[in-house]
């Protein structure tokens, strides 16, 4: 009688601990997932700002760089590709294919942008243009903000991924379908830095 009751008590307590662990672990995973998703929206805002600046920059440069039409078109194409890749990534941050797409689109865009900046060096008139100067300044600052926000996002993704891989939370992660989140890396090491702008 009494042992039976103690057994019930022990079962209740054990059940309680398991329940609390499940709730706690699940909530932690949700919080960490929200955190990295939120971190992406910080990148998103700055990327959009950058995508808005680029056409203005091209428009300003057009008058000076008439013989470099190819580069200018390449910038616009790369920018448009990045815009659509970002739309997809913003809808589902951390998703492997979306993140790979935005990573490569951003790498490509950074590549052509640095080519454009290098070209601009050869045109003193363009460099002296005040609109161009303020646009480039604006772009550099936005670029810095993007990479800062990207660092925060990657930190958040790492924390989340670690949490979902360690025991015992990994059991919960598998049961409730918490997938691996993908980092946002700019692939080529030479382009990791924001394009250098010198006046």
């Amino acid at each position, binding site marked *: *009688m*009494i042992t039976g*009751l*103690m057994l*019930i*008590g022990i079962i*209740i*307590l054990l*059940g*309680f601990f398991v*329940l*609390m662990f499940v709730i*706690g672990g699940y*909530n932690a995973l*949700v*919080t960490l997932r*929200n955190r990295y998703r*939120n*971190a992406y*929206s*910080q990148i998103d*805002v*700055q990327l*959009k700002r950058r995508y808005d600046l680029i056409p203005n920059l091209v428009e300003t440069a057009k008058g000076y760089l008439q013989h470099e039409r190819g580069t200018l078109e390449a910038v616009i194409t790369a920018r448009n590709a990045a815009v659509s890749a970002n739309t997809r990534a913003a809808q589902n941050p951390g998703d492997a294919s979306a993140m790979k797409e935005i990573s490569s689109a951003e790498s490509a865009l950074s590549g052509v942008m640095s080519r454009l900046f290098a070209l601009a060096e050869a045109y003193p008139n363009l460099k002296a243009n005040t609109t161009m100067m303020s646009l480039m300044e604006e772009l*550099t*600052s936005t670029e*810095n*903000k993007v*990479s*800062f*926000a990207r*660092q*925060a*996002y990657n*930190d*958040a993704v790492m*924390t989340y991924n670690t949490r979902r891989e360690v025991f015992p939370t990994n059991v919960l992660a598998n049961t409730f379908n918490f997938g691996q989140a993908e980092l946002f890396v700019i692939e080529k090491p030479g382009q990791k830095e*924001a394009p250098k702008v010198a006046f």
Partner: protein
Amino acid sequence: MDFFDRQDKARRNTKLLVFYFALAVLCLVLAVNVAVSLLFTGFTNYGLMIRNLNPVSSANESSLPGSQVELLFWVTIGTLAVILLGSVFKTLQLARGGSAVAELLDGRLINSNTTDADERKLLNVVEEMSIASGVPVPQVYVMDSEPGINAFAAGHTTSDVAISVTRGCMKLLSRDELQGVIAHEFSHILNGDMRLNLRLMGLVFGILCLTVIGRILIRTRGRKNPLPLVGLALIVIGWAGVFFGRLIQAAVSRQREGLADASAVQFTRNPTGLADALKKIGGLTYGSRIQSLHAEEASHLFFANGLGNSLFATHPPLTERIRALDPSFDGKFPYIVEGLISAISPAPGAPQRLQQIRAVQAEAGRFAAPFISQHAVVANIGQATTQHLSYAADFRQAIPPALEAAARDPLGASGLVCALLLANEPSMQQKQLEDLATGTSDAMRDETVRIRPEIQGMQLQAKIPLLDLALPALRHLSPQQFEQFRAAIKTLVASRTKADLFVYMLQKIAVRHLDTYFLSEQRLVTQFYALRPLAPDCGVLLSAMAYAGQENATGAYAAFAPGAECLSHAARCEIPWLPPDQCDLSHVDVALARLSQAVPQIKKNVLNACVQTVAADGVIQEGEAELLRAIADTLDCPVPPFVQLQEASAPALAED
């Protein structure tokens, strides 16, 4: 009743609450015991008991009571353990502060640099309220899956507050109505209701636990299995516990809601805004109902009833609340449908009124250094008024766009804080910037350099509000980035050759508010109930303030004396006067940390003494006033900005 009295009252209410709950738990344990003894001894020994009635049989008489006592002992232990564990679990879960509650109810953190018009409007309203009341800008969440109109503020202290509104609240309310709702929530923050509310949530959950376990047990199967019966009993008893919990929730909450409505009106001086918001709740099909599964636990936090009207309503009836604000209310609610409302333009008079105020303020030279009467300072704490609110709206308008954009972005906000801490001398500045680049990154230094010129033109008075505005964006730093940033700004302040108390306090404000967010274990509990053990700390603080305000030692002592005198009276001992090397920044740091653990009335005395010290030469200058605000902030006492009082009689404001 001033800020400190209200804080004290909230603390007393907490004790009452704990007493109520002890009572409820006692009732629960008794109920479980009765139920279990009925179930086991009652049913299984039914035959035995019948025989016991027969005076002839005496063989079982001695064994029965003994086993029953032991049984009941274990049942009691078990019940208490479940309630205790449940409460501890929930309290730990809520230890992270307001954001934990907001996330529990499926809130989504609004980005500090959002471009969505509705979210922007909401953030602007919250920012204005923050500047007006001196509370750092809280985190703002929106509950996307809630169509009703409701909102809540949760947190332990002013640095971990989260304000959360439903989608309906954000989309359906006009700016004035939203302002009314947010002002109501800020009143909760200033009245010290939030901490009480979180305690309540933790305790109620412990009792709710019984029901949860009961639900699980009831599903077990098997012949002659008593578990489902136990489960059923636990559910019934658990609900009895929830009944007690709700009763107390309702009792504590109802009167505080009325108080918050009243302070909200005092704050915005616009009862129609709040009344219209309440009317919209009445007219909306969803009303103020919250659909989340956790609504029950948090029902006492909300702006309006989250669970529909009942005996246990946590808020007074809508019509009653509206009539208190608008006596002409006829009881008919407007018909509200989501989707239509966005087409309706905001209340017509509002923009003109704002413009009028602005015109008058421009004439009066609003940002000129104010002259402050020394009695107004402590009385003002936690008492924001319409003047503060219009000051805040004006201040926000006056911020250059570049600075505003910076304050909303994590990197920009970090740069902004660093720029605030830079020294004025060029050579010193150069060294600081180099330190910054090595401590963090080149990008951070560039950002600081970019922002610095924008800040240089600003008044001293703008520095604390700017810092407050930057806080939400800084919470978007990753923990690693925060670690770097924290170390960097500490170095920035330490590397200055001449110690500047105000700059140091700025850094302290930033670090303190962000630490509670990033390192949640740093919460301090109240430890000091008397002033006497804090006398040396008061000495450090007052001496440091006296040196900061005066050129020479004699002047400094003259400033120190009145402050010390008013404190030594209260402490019944001498407040030590210290040489400069014993009250430098590191000593001040320790002293403030200890003082912040005192009960509200002690803080009031200390702040009063600080006012006496800075006012010793007859006037409180702008720099001294801002230093006071910064010190009050570290003691968790929000001081509204010091606005010029003569504007109360300005024509545009006199009309309402």
